[in-house]
């Protein structure tokens, strides 16, 4: 069900781990959703010099984290901010529709970590972790019913196509 690229990143995830003296940390997801992801950044001259991740989640979530770190590494912050969930999914040669949904955390975690870095250097202190919140679909990705693949509106808890209850946080 997964592409070769997804399985490669799942089997051999790149950039796993923690950066102890990270300049920015992004935490997204919650166990309700199924995935939790933490991104650690080391920034030098407004560039991502090092990036590591930790992920609790399915094969897609781990592959997304791994691919995201590969894509972000060495990029300027301005360019890294442009990386979208869709870009990551595309680089992975696609994800099953119901996994797009659940693995959208990747770019969100990166952007969160960059925000955290920016907040720190501007003296505002650490940004609030997003763990407790729903992840946002800010990059144009759509939600799909996990039962019948019909497109459902953001925040919808009932699929009108197949009449199934959807999880409240999705």
């Amino acid at each position: 069900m997964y592409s070769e690229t997804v399985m490669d990143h799942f089997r051999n995830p790149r950039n796993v781990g923690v950066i102890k003296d990270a300049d920015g940390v992004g935490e997204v997801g919650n166990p309700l959703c199924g995935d939790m992801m933490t991104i650690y950044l080391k920034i030098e001259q407004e560039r991502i010099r090092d990036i590591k991740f930790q992920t609790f989640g399915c094969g897609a979530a781990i592959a997304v984290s791994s691919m995201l770190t590969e894509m972000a590494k060495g990029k300027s912050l301005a360019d890294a901010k442009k990386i979208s969930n869709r870009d990551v999914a595309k680089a992975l040669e696609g994800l099953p529709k119901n996994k797009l949904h659940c693995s959208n955390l990747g770019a969100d975690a990166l952007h969160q970590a960059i925000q955290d870095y920016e907040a720190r250097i501007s003296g505002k202190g650490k940004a609030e972790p997003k763990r407790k919140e729903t992840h946002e679909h800010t990059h144009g990705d759509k939600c799909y019913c996990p039962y019948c693949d019909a497109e459902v509106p953001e925040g919808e808890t009932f699929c009108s196509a197949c009449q199934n209850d959807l999880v409240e946080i999705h």
Partner: protein
Amino acid sequence: MTAINLDHLSANPLLPEVKDAMIEAIRADYGNPSSQHRIGDRAAEALDAARQSVARLINSPTSKEVVFTSGGTESVNHAIKGVALAHSDRGKHIVTSNIEHNAVLRSLRRLKLLDFKVTSVPVDEYGRVNPADVAEAVTDQTILVTIMHSNNEIGTVQPIEEIAAVTRERKVIFHTDAVDSVGVIPVDVQKLGVNLLSFSSNTFYGPTGVGGLYVRRGTKVWPLLDGGVQEHNKRAGTENLLGIIGMGVAAEAALRDMDRRIAHASGLRGKLMETLPQYIDGFIFNGHPEEVLPNLVSVSIKYVEGESIVLMLDDEGIAVSTRSACAAGALQASHVLLSIGREFADAQGTLVVSFGLENTEEDVIRFLEALKGTVKTLREISPLYNGEAVNE
């Protein structure tokens, strides 16, 4: 390296004798059992023989009380919707439990659209229903109680006889979904005292696409399928004779070998549960310690997610199942695991290991060795793991 199948709940291979019987049945060019000529008579005889074999497996007093269906899902749908439709003039209330299979849950959800009301009773930490809760939930509007015989995720077996005592006294029809029990552990419809009991052929190494519904004499149930008068007018359509013949042979074998199969599965189950602590820490076994299927182990492993474990074990040639939300495609943590009090994250890391006839203790050890490495790798990736894990 040979593959190890520890996911027999998903699919069982056909027994060799079942294959032989089905191949022979293909060659026999059976006709239609409903026909009035000799070609039909031969088919009717084969159908009747299979029905008797299946009736013996569940100790049905007459084979007339066995209806062949297309499998467990149809049987459950038939029982629930058939009772609801036939008795809606008496009331529109149904009692069930919090840990039923989707076939039950979704049949009931469909009926709610027709103004049926459903009361779902809770289970304890082992997944057992308290019969007193059922007694309390039954009202004068209740037409049906449907509670599963054994659970497909944690293996817990319910006190069906005690619940049947309640339904008998209150004159309510009782259906039990016994899809994971029949052919695995002794199931005696007379002793259980149920009106309706659903079961599936593949559970006991018969073909998929065929199952059965026990309908106790006098229980009014509408058919799901209308047409001819097959299956004592309870299920129209020319019978799936090849499948039914296979199911009959599998039923004979299940009855003949049941004690040996239970001893074999229990041995493997015991081995896995005793030995697991030598390989990993931070886990919780799910299900009742004694009232449980012999062929299933459910274990929640902390700080890791089930689909990832399944994919990594698959790379090592080992097939297991998970009840993680991600793998189920439903994005919802298992209602069964949440009902017995598991945290969301622990429910996510739940594996279901189910044994079959060909499994050996070596399989269990190879699984444990592979699991150890998999859990170590995934915990190193997990933000939830801080280097320590404690068993609960």
